[in-house]
C-alpha cells in the first residue's frame, strides 16, 4: 500500500481506536483524561494527514510536474460480499470495499483533522463541567472516524455507509443534552430530515447499482463520464443507460446532499441543530458534516447530466437566498451563524450546479476554516456569557474577551470577503464562474433570466457582509447591555488557542495551494480514467489555468456554442469576468460591512427607530420567524396528516358506525326472533352435540398429556411407519 494511502488509513482508524477505548473505558478514565485521549488520537490523525499531504505533494510536486509525472491517484478495492447479477453483468458481482485517494482526499483529510483537532482542544475546556464528558469525546471520535471514512471511501456503498454513520453521530451529538426537550426534538428533526434526503440517495444508489453494480469511483467516472453531454450512455454488455435514468439518479443522489447539507426544502433542521453543544456545531454543523453533501456532489459531479446540474443550481440558489435573508433578523448568535452556514452551503451547491467544481470545493475548504472559527468564537462568547446566546444581552464584550473578539472579527472579515482573506478568493472564484455561466448561457439560449445566476449570488454577498458585521457589532462593540453578564465574562487559553490557529488559516487559507491541489484532482481523475488528456465530466472553461482539452472543438458538437467559445479562450473570458466581479465583491464587502457597522454600533438604537415603520416591522417578523418554514411544514405535513386522520375519524364515526349500528339493530330484532326458535329447537341439538364434543374431548385430551416422552413416542412411531412405507415403495 503506498505511503499516503497507508497514512490516511491510519488517520482514519485512530479516531475509531479512541472511540473504542473511550466506549469501554471512558467512564473510568474520567473527566480530563478521556478528553486528552480523544484529542491525542485526532491530533495523531492530523499529523498523519499532514505527513500524507507532504508525501503526496512530494510524490510529483504540486504543480505541473505532478501532471507530467503521470502519477495516478491511489485506488484500491477488493471484493467483499458476493451479490447477484446486475443489468449489464454476466457474472455475479461483488460488494466492493475500497480506498480512493487523490488530491481532494488528501486536502479534505488535512482540513477535517485540523478542524477536529481544534474542536477537540476547545471542547476539553468548553465541556469541562459536563457530567457526560467522556461520552462526548466518544461520540466525537466516532464522528471523526465516520467523516474520514466517508472521505477515503472508494465506492458509493462505502460513501453511503459512512454517510449514515455521520448522520447517526450528528443525531447523537445534537441530542447530547437530551434532558432539554428542545435538544431531543432537534435531534429527531435532524434525523428525520436526513432520512428524507437519504431516501432519495437510496433511490439514486439503487438505479446506479442496477446498472453498474457497486462500482468504485474511478469505474463510475470512466463509464459514465460523458453524462455531462446529456445523452444516453452505452455501458458494458450492450446495455444503454438512458439519459432520463441518469438524471433521476443524479437528482436522487443529490437528494442525499440536500438532506445532509441542509438545502432548501430540508434546511430546517440545521438551525435547530444549534441545540447541541457549540463545539459540535462548529465541527459537524458548520465545518465538516454538512460539507459532506457538497463533497458527495463533487464526487458524483462527472456523472451529473445538465438537467440534474440545473436542479442542483436552482436548489442552491434558493437556499442561499432565503438563508441569507433569514439570517438578517435572527437574534440568537448561533442561529445567525447557522443560517449563514446554510447560505454558504447554498453557495457551494449553486457553484456545483453551475459547473464550478473547483469553486465549490475551494469554498468548502475555506468556509470550513472560517466557519469553524466563527462557531468556536461564538462558543467562547457563550462560555464567557454563561450560556447566554441572545445578541441583545451582549455588547461591548471586546474589552473582556479580546482574543475572541479579534479572531471573531477575522472570521467575519473572511466570510464577508475582505480582500486577500481566504473567503475573498473562494467567493471570487464562484462569482467569476457564475458570471461566465450566466453570460454564456444567456447568449446561447437567448434568455436573459440566466443572469439571475450571477445577480442573486452577488446580492447575497452584500447580505452576508451585512449580517456578519451586525452579529459582530452587536456582540463585541458598543456599550454593554447586560452588566451582570459583562462583568463576569472571561476567556481562557484553552479556548482561544484553537481560535488563533483557525484565524491564521482563515487569513491565509486562500493562498495555500488548495486551488492547485483541486486542479490536480481534476487531472488525476482524467489520468485514472485513462482518457488521453480529456477532462472527464469537468468543464474546463470553469477550472482556471487548466490546459484546454486535447481534442479539438469540432469533435464535441453537442455543447452549446457560447460554452465552446468560452472553452476556446478560457483565459480571456476569465480575465473579463474577473474584472467585473472584483469590484462587485469588494463593493459588497464595503457596503455590507459599512452599513451594518453604522446601524448597529449603537446597539439597537437605530433599529428601534426603523421598527416603527410598519412594512419594515412586518418584514422583520417574517424573517425573524424563519419565513414561517417551521409553521408551514407543521401545518402542511403534521397538520395534513392530522386533517386526514380526523377526516378518517369522522368517516368512521358517522358513516361506518351508522351502518354498523343499523346492522346491529336489525340483527337484534332478528336475533330475538331466532332466539325463540333457538331456545326450544336448536338448543336440544346443540346441547346434545356439546355433550358429545365434551366426551370426545375428555377422551382426546389424554393424548395431550404434556409429557415430552409421549410426544416423542408418537413421533417415533410415525417415523418408523414412514420408513417402512418408504422402504416398501422404493427399496424392493
Amino acid at each position: 500500500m503506498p505511503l499516503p494511502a497507508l497514512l490516511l488509513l491510519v488517520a482514519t482508524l485512530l479516531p475509531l481506536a479512541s472511540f473504542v477505548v473511550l466506549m469501554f473505558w471512558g467512564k473510568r478514565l474520567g473527566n480530563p483524561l478521556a478528553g486528552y485521549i480523544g484529542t491525542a488520537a485526532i491530533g495523531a490523525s492530523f499529523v498523519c494527514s499532514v505527513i500524507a499531504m507532504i508525501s503526496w505533494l512530494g510524490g510529483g510536486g504540486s504543480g505541473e510536474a505532478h501532471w507530467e509525472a503521470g502519477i495516478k491517484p491511489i485506488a484500491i478495492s477488493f471484493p467483499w460480499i458476493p451479490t447477484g447479477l446486475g443489468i449489464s453483468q454476466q457474472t455475479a458481482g461483488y460488494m466492493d470495499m475500497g480506498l480512493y485517494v487523490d488530491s481532494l482526499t488528501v486536502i479534505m483529510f488535512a482540513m477535517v483533522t485540523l478542524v477536529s483537532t481544534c474542536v477537540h482542544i476547545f471542547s476539553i475546556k468548553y465541556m469541562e463541567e459536563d457530567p457526560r464528558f467522556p461520552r462526548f469525546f466518544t461520540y466525537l471520535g466516532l464522528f471523526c472516524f465516520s467523516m474520514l471514512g466517508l472521505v477515503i471511501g472508494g465506492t458509493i456503498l462505502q460513501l453511503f455507509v459512512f454517510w449514515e454513520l455521520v448522520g447517526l453521530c450528528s443525531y447523537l451529538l445534537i441530542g447530547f443534552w437530551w434532558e432539554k426537550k428542545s435538544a431531543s426534538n432537534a435531534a429527531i428533526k435532524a434525523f428525520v430530515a436526513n432520512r428524507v434526503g437519504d431516501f432519495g440517495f437510496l433511490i439514486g444508489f439503487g438505479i446506479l447499482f442496477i446498472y453498474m453494480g457497486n462500482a468504485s469511483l474511478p469505474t463510475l467516472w470512466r463509464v459514465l463520464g460523458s453524462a455531462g453531454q446529456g445523452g444516453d450512455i452505452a455501458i458494458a454488455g450492450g446495455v444503454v443507460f438512458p439519459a432520463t435514468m441518469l438524471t433521476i439518479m443524479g437528482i436522487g443522489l443529490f437528494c442525499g446532499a440536500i438532506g445532509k447539507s441542509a438545502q432548501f426544502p430540508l434546511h430546517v433542521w440545521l438551525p435547530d441543530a444549534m441545540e447541541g453543544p457549540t463545539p459540535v456545531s462548529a465541527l459537524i454543523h458548520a465545518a465538516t458534516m454538512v460539507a459532506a453533501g457538497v463533497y458527495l456532489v463533487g464526487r458524483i459531479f462527472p456523472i451529473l447530466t445538465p438537467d440534474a446540474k440545473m436542479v442542483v443550481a436552482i436548489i442552491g440558489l434558493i437556499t442561499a437566498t432565503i438563508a441569507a435573508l433569514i439570517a438578517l433578523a435572527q437574534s440568537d448568535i448561533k442561529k445567525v451563524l447557522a443560517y449563514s452556514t446554510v447560505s454558504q452551503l447554498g453557495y457551494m451547491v449553486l457553484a456545483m450546479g453551475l459547473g464550478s467544481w473547483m469553486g465549490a470545493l475551494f469554498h468548502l475548504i475555506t468556509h470550513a476554516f472560517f466557519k469553524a472559527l466563527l462557531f468556536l468564537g461564538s462558543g467562547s462568547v457563550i462560555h464567557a456569557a454563561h450560556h447566554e446566546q441572545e445578541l441583545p444581552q451582549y455588547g461591548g464584550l471586546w474589552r473582556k474577551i479580546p482574543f475572541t473578539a479579534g479572531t471573531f472579527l477575522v472570521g467575519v472579515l473572511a466570510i464577508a470577503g475582505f480582500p486577500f482573506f481566504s473567503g475573498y478568493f473562494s467567493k471570487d472564484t464562484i462569482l467569476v464562474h457564475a458570471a461566465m455561466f450566466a453570460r454564456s448561457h444567456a447568449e446561447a439560449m437567448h434568455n436573459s433570466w440566466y443572469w439571475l445566476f450571477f445577480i442573486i449570488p452577488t446580492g447575497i454577498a452584500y447580505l452576508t457582509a451585512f449580517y456578519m458585521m451586525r452579529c459582530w457589532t452587536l456582540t463585541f462593540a458598543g456599550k454593554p447591555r447586560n452588566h451582570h453578564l459583562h462583568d463576569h465574562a472571561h476567556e481562557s487559553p484553552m479556548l482561544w488557542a484553537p481560535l488563533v490557529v483557525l484565524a491564521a488559516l482563515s487569513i491565509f487559507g486562500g493562498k495555500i495551494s488548495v486551488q492547485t491541489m483541486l486542479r490536480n484532482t481534476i487531472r488525476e481523475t482524467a489520468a485514472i480514467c485513462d482518457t488521453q488528456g480529456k477532462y472527464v465530466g469537468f468543464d474546463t472553461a470553469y477550472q482556471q489555468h487548466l490546459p484546454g482539452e486535447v481534442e479539438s472543438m469540432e469533435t464535441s458538437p453537442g455543447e452549446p456554442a457560447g460554452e465552446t467559445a468560452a472553452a476556446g479562450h478560457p483565459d480571456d473570458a476569465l480575465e473579463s469576468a474577473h474584472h467585473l466581479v472584483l469590484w462587485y465583491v469588494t463593493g459588497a464587502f464595503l457596503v455590507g460591512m459599512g452599513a451594518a457597522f453604522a446601524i448597529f454600533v449603537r446597539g439597537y438604537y437605530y433599529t428601534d427607530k426603523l421598527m416603527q415603520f410598519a412594512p419594515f416591522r412586518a418584514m422583520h417578523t417574517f424573517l425573524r420567524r424563519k419565513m414561517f418554514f417551521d409553521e408551514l411544514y407543521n401545518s402542511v405535513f403534521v397538520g395534513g396528516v392530522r386533517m386526514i386522520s380526523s377526516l378518517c375519524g369522522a368517516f368512521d364515526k358517522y358513516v361506518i358506525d351508522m351502518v354498523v349500528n343499523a346492522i346491529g339493530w336489525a340483527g337484534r330484532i332478528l336475533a330475538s326472533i331466532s332466539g325463540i326458535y333457538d331456545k326450544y329447537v336448536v338448543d336440544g341439538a346443540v346441547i346434545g352435540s356439546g355433550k358429545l364434543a365434551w366426551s370426545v374431548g375428555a377422551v382426546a385430551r389424554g393424548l395431550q398429556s404434556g409429557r415430552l416422552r409421549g410426544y416423542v413416542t408418537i413421533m417415533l412411531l410415525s417415523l418408523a411407519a414412514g420408513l417402512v412405507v418408504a422402504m416398501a415403495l422404493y427399496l424392493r
Partner: protein
Amino acid sequence: MNTTLAILAQNSAGAPDGATALINTALFYVFAAMAVGSAIGVMVSRNIVRTAVCLLMALLGVAGLYLGMHAEFLAAVQLVVYAGGTLVLIIFGVMLTNNSTFQLYRPKRLEVVVGSGLVAMLATVLITAILRSGMADRVVTSGNTYAIQTLGEALLGDYLVPFELISVLLLAVMIGAAYLAKGRRREGEGQ
C-alpha cells in the same frame, strides 16, 4: 487416540496394503464400538453425571470416526466445542439443578418396556433400510490429502453468509441465555 491418528495419517498414503486395511478396519470397529457402546450407556445409565461421561466417550468415539474419514479439523472441533465446551456446560447445568448429588429420576417399568421396544423397532427399520439401499457400492472419492485451506476458503467464500448468520445467532444465544438464566429467586426464599 495418539496411535490411531498417526496410523490413520500414515496409512492413508498410496494404495493400502492388506495390513493397512486390516488396521483401518480394526480402528473403525474400535471407535464404532466406543461410540455405540457409550451411546447405549447414555441410554441406560441412571445417574445423570454418568450419562454425561458416557456422552463424552461417545463424542470421543465420533471424533475417532471423523479421523477415519480424514476430517481431522472436524475431529478437533468436536473435541474443543463438544467435549471441552458443551459438555462442561451441561455438567454445570447438572450441578446447578440437582437437589441432592445423587438424585435419580426413574422411569416406570412399562415406559421402559415400551421405549426399548420402540427403539429396537426403529433401529431394525433403519438398519434394514441402510442395508437394502445399495449404498455399499459407494467408494471413497475425495482425496486423502486434507487441506485445511479448502475448508477455510469454503467457510469464508461460498458459505460466508451462513457463517455470518451463525455468528449473529451465537450472539443472540449468548444474550438470550444470559437473560433466561439470570438468577431469579424462587418465591419464599430469602431475599
